């Protein structure tokens, strides 16, 4: 029987092409993901091991530098004691924080969140083992810095040049003393690293004389564990020590975890692609079996058992699956390589390393490919086994009875109803539980709709048929009828597209709805023209606020300054210090009772929900404990509506000023005379001293900042789902090619009685468009439903949430589905038009 199977595969090479392609793409996705993840985590692991290579023990302080009761870090004395431990070669004190480097145009070099500054910590030999200087030497004077090689190259800086560097204070100019290479994580992540003289760094980032951490190197032959034991007792309570090996392992584990979630997401999408492929494969084998009815009946007649027939179909599938998987795996390796260089092209720094192809991805990819193909061929195989031997004698093809569709429809309806009920239940109950119901419901609804799709195809396509006959005449009429001729086949083909579009639409509805809500919230609440913040998301220096207050043309300016105090007993509340009189001009403050002017009188304003839950109302006098432990009283002057942009408690900056040594300013909102303009923006930038570390965002930038992430996310999702859609398109090609093959005789007749080639093509093309758009409509419907349901569960977390159906995108999806049909029909339509009429009309 196996030989028959093999012969069959070889005989139907062309017809199995699409199946092979589908399996191949799915397997490539799976193996590409696995190989990429393995390669990447190996590279990261090597790198982290390398960065701790000569670290025997690392000490980290967790002290709060603002707490006067404890030592703010590791003192020089502690370091000296560590250095004196037996087996220790040297101890290097480290202190780091944010530092942004300006290029000659004043723009920040590198991405904001990994621009780091640290101290240069020379040992006895004047060298710091963490950095290898390629040019010049480490900074040892107040006005010297060193830069990592890549940042120096980006800024085109040479040793001796003057470089502008911003920490969270004003920009300062330093002389570049040297350029170095390092295994530091910030640099490897594509950021920049500035080295300062130790005293400068300590003053900037901690307290003079103190370090945040230390790395200890061992003398040759010394045991790391023994050093660790000796170092432990020397440390203050707020610090702990670990061996370099332990830290490297810890980091490796973190990398592994990060990698595995990326891997799972990618594998999830690969799974979707393979799931879609199942329909294509199943369709192909169904058609192959149907075309071979006589042959199979003959085998049964000469004594093959049903089991043997099923097995022969499965063996055929296994051969196809194996061939496709092997090709797919090779493609997958290519994909992994491509992904790596692709990420590099997007400025994501990935450490180099060899391509890791271990046994797991090989086995997984090929196993998945073969099993999926066999699974998809199982039903057609069983159907083949049911062909009675007598079919060998009759010339009529066995036609599927309507009875099985009745059973199918009842099951489908039940499953769909169950799924939809779970989705509605989930949407109404909300929260995490609700989302669980929706997830389960979505699965069942999707399966149910797939089961029901053959039934749906008739009425839905009948609905659009008049649209086809009108402009396209007889070709349209025939196409419409052909599309519903074999509901199962149309259904399976449309299902593949429907799955992809369900996900695409669901994500779009959700993303656009949330995005619109956030955007509306942003535009409604922000009245300021500009928002000023640090590039790294850290706090702004007081000097920035002062500079903006003095800037020309500024009409209102208010900081959002985090304030830590206990209010009304010993409950901690999140509060912001703002500028009275200006805050309501830059942000919307919707006062419910009292007056916002009371802020200027040293009173506080409280958000409605907080006021309600604590039972506060205007006029109440509340005890307060400030950050410096001093006590006082504050009066509630106003209650305002809760807003995403305002803390629950607002207070005048002047009130907290005496109690906060280092105010933590998150953002500064600015309103200027004449509103937004390039010149006004420049005024602000100049006022801030052209600081590369400070970003000035106009209203559009702010909207992008809050809503842009969603668009990026959506685009990534679209990209990942593209694979599933490509396989769906292959499915349409496959179905059409097979249909054209089966209908050779009637196409020949149509040509004979006068249907020209153009219209034969049009007929095939329209059939493809009808099937594709049908699948798209089903998917869009289901996707919108799911998007609505999931949206309902998060609606209460987003003020101003309202369902937005992205009609423009839905329209684009439909048009794309139509184009997919046209594209998929290219080859089958050509075949149909080129059909040899005489062969076609010849009687069998």
């Amino acid at each position: 029987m196996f030989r028959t199977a093999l012969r069959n595969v070889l005989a139907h090479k062309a017809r199995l092409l699409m199946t092979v392609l589908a399996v191949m793409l799915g397997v490539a996705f799976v193996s590409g993901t696995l190989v990429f993840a393995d390669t990447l985590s190996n590279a990261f692991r090597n790198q982290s091991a390398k960065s701790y290579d000569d670290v025997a023990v690392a000490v980290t302080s967790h002290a709060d530098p603002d707490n006067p009761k404890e030592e703010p870090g590791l003192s020089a004395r502690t370091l000296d004691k560590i250095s004196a431990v037996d087996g220790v070669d040297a101890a290097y004190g480290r202190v780091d924080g944010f530092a942004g480097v300006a290029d000659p145009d004043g723009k920040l070099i590198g991405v904001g969140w990994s621009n780091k500054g640290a101290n240069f910590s020379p040992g006895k030999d004047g060298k710091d083992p963490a950095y290898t200087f390629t040019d010049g030497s480490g900074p040892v004077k107040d006005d010297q810095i060193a830069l990592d090689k890549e940042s120096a190259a980006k800024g085109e800086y040479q040793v001796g040049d003057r470089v502008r560097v911003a920490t969270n204070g004003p920009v300062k100019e330093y002389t570049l003393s040297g350029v170095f290479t390092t295994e530091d994580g910030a640099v490897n992540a594509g950021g920049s690293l500035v080295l300062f003289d130790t005293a400068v760094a300590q003053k900037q980032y901690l307290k003079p004389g103190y370090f945040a951490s230390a790395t200890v190197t061992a003398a040759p032959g010394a045991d790391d564990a023994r050093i660790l034991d000796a170092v432990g007792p020397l440390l203050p309570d707020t610090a702990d020590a670990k061996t370099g090996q332990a830290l490297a392992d810890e980091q490796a584990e973190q990398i592994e975890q990060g990698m595995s979630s990326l891997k799972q997401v990618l594998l999830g999408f690969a799974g979707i692609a393979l799931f879609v492929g199942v329909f294509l494969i199943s369709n192909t084998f169904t058609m192959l079996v149907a075309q071979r009815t006589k042959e199979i009946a003959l085998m049964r007649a000469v004594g093959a058992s049903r089991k043997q027939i099923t097995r022969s179909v499965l063996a055929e599938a296994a051969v196809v699956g194996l061939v496709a998987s092997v090709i797919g795996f090779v493609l997958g390796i290519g994909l992994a390589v491509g992904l790596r260089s692709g990420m590099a092209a997007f400025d994501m720094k990935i450490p180099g390393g060899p391509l890791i192809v271990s046994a797991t991805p090989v086995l997984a990819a090929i196993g998945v490919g073969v099993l999926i193909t066999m699974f998809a061929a199982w039903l057609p195989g069983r159907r083949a086994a049911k062909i009675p031997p007598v079919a060998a004698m009759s010339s009529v093809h066995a036609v599927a009875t309507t009875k099985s569709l009745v059973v199918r429809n009842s099951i489908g309806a039940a499953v769909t109803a169950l799924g939809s009920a779970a989705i509605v239940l989930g949407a109404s109950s909300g929260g995490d539980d609700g989302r669980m119901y929706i997830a389960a419901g979505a699965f069942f609804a999707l399966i149910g709709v797939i089961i029901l799709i053959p039934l749906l195809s008739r009425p839905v396509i009948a609905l659009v048929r008049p649209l086809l006959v009108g402009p396209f005449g007889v070709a349209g009429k025939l196409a419409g009828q052909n599309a519903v001729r074999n509901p199962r086949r149309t259904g399976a083909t449309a299902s593949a597209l429907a799955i992809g579009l369900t996900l695409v639409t669901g994500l779009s509805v959700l993303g656009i709805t949330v995005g619109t809500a956030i955007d509306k919230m942003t535009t409604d609440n922000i009245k300021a023209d500009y928002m000023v913040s640090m590039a790294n998301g850290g706090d702004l220096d007081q000097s920035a606020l002062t500079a903006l207050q003095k800037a020309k043309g500024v009409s209102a300016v208010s900081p959002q300054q985090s304030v830590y105090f206990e209010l009304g007993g010993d409950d901690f509340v999140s509060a912001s210090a703002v500028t009275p009189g200006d805050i309501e001009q830059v942000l919307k403050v919707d006062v419910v009772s009292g007056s916002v002017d009371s802020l200027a009188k040293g009173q506080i304003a409280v958000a409605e929900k907080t006021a309600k839950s604590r039972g506060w109302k205007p006029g109440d006098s509340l005890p307060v404990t400030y950050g410096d432990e001093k006590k006082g009283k504050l009066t509630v002057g106003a209650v305002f509506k809760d807003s995403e942009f305002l803390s629950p408690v607002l207070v005048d900056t002047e009130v907290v000023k005496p109690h906060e040594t280092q105010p933590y300013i998150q953002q500064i909102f600015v309103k200027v005379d004449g509103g937004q303009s390039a010149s006004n923006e420049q005024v602000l930038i100049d006022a801030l001293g052209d600081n590369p570390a400070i970003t000035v965002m106009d209203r559009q930038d702010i909207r992008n900042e809050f809503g842009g992430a969603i668009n990026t996310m959506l685009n990534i999702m679209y990209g990942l789902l593209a694979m599933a859609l490509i396989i769906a398109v292959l499915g349409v090609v496959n179905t059409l090619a097979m249909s054209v093959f089966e209908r050779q005789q009637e196409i020949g007749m149509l040509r004979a009685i006068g249907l020209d080639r153009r219209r034969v093509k049009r007929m095939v093309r329209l059939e493809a468009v009808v099937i594709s758009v049908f699948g798209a409509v089903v998917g869009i419907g289901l996707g919108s439903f799911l998007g609505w349901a999931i949206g309902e569960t998060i609606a209460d977390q987003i003020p101003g949430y309202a369902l937005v159906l992205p009609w423009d995108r839905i329209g684009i999806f439909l048009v794309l589905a139509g184009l997919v049909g046209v594209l998929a029909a290219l080859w089958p339509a050509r075949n149909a038009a080129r059909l040899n009429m005489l062969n076609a009309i010849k009687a069998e």
Partner: protein
Amino acid sequence: MTTASIADRATTVAARATDLSKIYGQGETQVVALDRVTVEFRQAEFTAIMGPSGSGKSTLMHCVAGLDTFSSGSVRIGDTELGSLKDKQLTKLRRDKIGFIFQAFNLLPTLTALENITLPMDIAGRKPDKQWVDSVIRMVGLADRLGHRPAQLSGGQQQRVAVARALASRPEIIFGDEPTGNLDSRSGAEVLGFLRNSVRELGQTVVMVTHDPVAAAYADRVVFLADGRIVDEMYKPTADNVLDFMKQFDAKGRTS
């Protein structure tokens, strides 16, 4: 249509092949399917083309009907020379001037009987002449089966739909390729009766390829083909005459 005009038309030629040759392959493997065949099909005449398998009878019909290309010679349908036509023009010619009846019926399973009958006009984008279509339907006796799909009809009924389809667009000439080949003798006789009636009463021109002497006896004239050449023709044939001729011919073929 008056008797006079039918008589008129009988003198004009509906289709003509002159020195028609069709050669497959080249050199050693060359096969001559048609060898300089010259034949005329007159209007309002029912012609049967006969010959043993491989005689070229189907090829002759395919070439004259514009379904197949030929190597040399000329074919005219009415005033149109087929040799110079491109596929598009040939398609249009078949659509407007030629009707077909196939051995395997070749109806579209998705269309009803009536839709199948009017399909050629649908393709041409013409409104069918309702009176004419009605009379054709009455003639083939399908009035009560118009809403049925081919799968619900018997073989004989299906072929009657095919006959009606060929007649409905009033083509200049109808070609039949073994139209009774898949039918039992009674249904076959019915179909042939309709074809003969369409020639006698409606002035239709019909050319039919067959290997059945009984079918050929319905024709006004029989053309005999062998080895790609016309070897003889017979007017007012009877089944016995034709059979005798074929036997004779077979014997000749064997002795030569």
